[in-house]
């Protein structure tokens, strides 16, 4: 499986600068925020995150319906089922049980972002450690670790997640785990490739001459210098993780009801697609916006970190 096909275009490493100057960070942030699309991405994600964090407090304060609260003022006048189209009280309608869709989308965002963040945290930690060890130690450590990574790569990402959840049983934790495992290879490969080249640099040699052990060299000397492609990969990974989580929940293999999740809302709404368009439109729109935004952020970081940009 080696050869011409690489996962993602890798970005060029900045020439060895073990300690970044504080000024560079500001340059990067400014060029990131000057980019209109990445600014859009940050704003959308910030809004969803804020809403997700604040949701329980807003519910307690009475500004937002509880996700599983059945609005009886709606229920009292049932047409055939209890879903109601968007109205003033329920801006994106209610579902078949008379629950407020807007509230469920916000609470669904909690699940979605939680799974995405945790999955990325786990897969970055594991993947980067594998990549560093493989790249730094080389020899048999490298070949063993990379064979394991290749084995994971042999499965299409979504299918691996489905298999794992099918075997472990559907739950939030298992969905997160299944998604995390699927992302380990890309982190491991990126880190390994960079570690291989950085290993030969003089400052690594000087660290070794000063008596630093392999772990210190790996995590304190090599890792900071290979961080930028990892960050880019992690933010792009967020978008895929959220997409896979939604697919799993859509298939009924992810978060189990009554906890609201976007994927499940879509599959529940699918039953009533001929009579209630708002049930499928809005949760999907939320997925779309969040995935798009993470894509924008990833691209924005990639461009901002590209040293060729700043020379102009």
């Amino acid at each position, binding site marked *: *499986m080696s*050869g*011409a*096909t690489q996962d993602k275009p890798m970005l060029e490493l900045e020439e060895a600068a073990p300690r970044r100057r504080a000024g560079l960070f500001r340059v990067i942030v400014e060029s990131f925020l000057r980019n209109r699309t990445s600014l859009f991405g940050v704003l959308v994600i910030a809004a969803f995150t804020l809403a997700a964090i604040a949701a329980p407090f807003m519910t307690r304060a009475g500004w937002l319906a509880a996700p599983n609260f059945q609005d009886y003022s709606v229920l009292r006048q049932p047409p055939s089922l209890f879903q109601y189209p968007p109205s003033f009280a329920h801006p994106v309608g209610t579902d078949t049980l008379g629950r407020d869709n807007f509230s469920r989308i916000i609470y669904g965002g909690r699940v979605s972002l939680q799974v995405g963040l945790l999955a990325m945290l786990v897969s970055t930690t594991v993947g980067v450690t594998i990549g560093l060890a493989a790249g730094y130690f080389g020899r048999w450590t490298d070949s063993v670790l990379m*064979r394991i990574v*290749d*084995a994971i790569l*042999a*499965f*299409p*990402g*979504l*299918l691996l997640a*489905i*298999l*794992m959840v*099918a*075997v472990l*049983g559907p739950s939030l934790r298992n969905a997160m785990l299944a998604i995390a495992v699927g992302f380990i290879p890309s982190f491991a490969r990126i880190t390994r490739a960079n570690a291989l080249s950085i290993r030969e640099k003089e400052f690594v040699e000087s660290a070794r001459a000063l008596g630093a052990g392999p772990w210190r060299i790996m995590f304190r000397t090599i890792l900071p210098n290979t961080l930028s492609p990892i960050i880019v990969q992690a933010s792009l990974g967020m*978008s895929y993780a959220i*997409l896979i989580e*939604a*697919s799993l929940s*859509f*298939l*009924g*293999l992810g978060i189990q009801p009554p906890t609201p999740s976007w994927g499940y809302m*879509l*599959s529940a*709404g*699918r039953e009533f*697609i*001929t009579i209630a*368009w708002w049930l*499928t*439109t809005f949760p*999907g729109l939320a*997925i*779309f916006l969040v*995935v*798009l935004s993470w*894509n924008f952020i990833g691209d924005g970081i990639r461009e901002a970190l590209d040293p060729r940009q700043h020379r102009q």
Partner: protein
Amino acid sequence: MVVVLSFVIFAAVRYAPGDPAVTRLGMEATREALEREREDLGLNRPIYVQYAIWVGKLFRGDMGDSLAYSAGYPVSSLVWEKFKRTIPLTLSAMLVGVAVSIPMGIIAGLRPFSWLDNVISAGSLFGVAAPSFWVGLMLILLFAVQLGWLPTSGYGPIGQGFHWQYFILPSVALGIQLMGALTRYMRSGMLDVMSSDYIRTARAKGIPYRLIVARHAIKNAMLSVVTVIALDFGALLAGALVTETVFRWPGVGLLLVDAIQARDYAIVQMIVLITSVVYVSFNLLADILYGYLDPRIRYE
């Protein structure tokens, strides 16, 4: 690679929770009957013997019988029946994806940063970010519910030939997944090629612009795209599993979901194995194709 695959899949399913003997006989079965059933199924033998038997049977095309979903029916014919419906869907989705994204990518690549390019690029971003099952639902809403042009879901009357109306929406929904990525690749391929030296030489020789694009540029820009198409076939097959659920398409995807719910791991095992093998094969094919199309690339 296939060996590793088979091992992982076997182990995953073998250690899955749930006792196949219980699934077969039901919760009320006596202890003795369960023990006899385990003996019959070979569940008491060492794990490596079970694996060897499983692989041996696999080569003879015997994938065991379905335990729960459709008890007693051989898994191989069950899964094959469904694949015969999923593969045409995957292929037509691929056709839709390629037919739309190649011209789009060419147009966008020839006029970078024009309004046309901006529209196409925005469209391809939509393709990348929109989940295909949601796109499917939106297509149903628009074309089936609002306009009533096409059927909402299903396969048409089974066993009565081919019904193209049922193919359109699922193919488009699945194809959009491919379109986004492919358009981007084609666009950047065209950009690269058009700024290369040999195109400049061709223009300097006075070859008309149309001819340059048609003869030289598109061919070379297609290079990387062809391999992406091969790479994406496996992903598309996996995506088809979800799309099928949206459209109630009676293929492998629906079978997989049903089998998981019924805890019928023999079926799950088979579907995952076949899909993964196809995926790996196409990855290999992509590598080979790339080397073949571009003689500058050589593998050691």
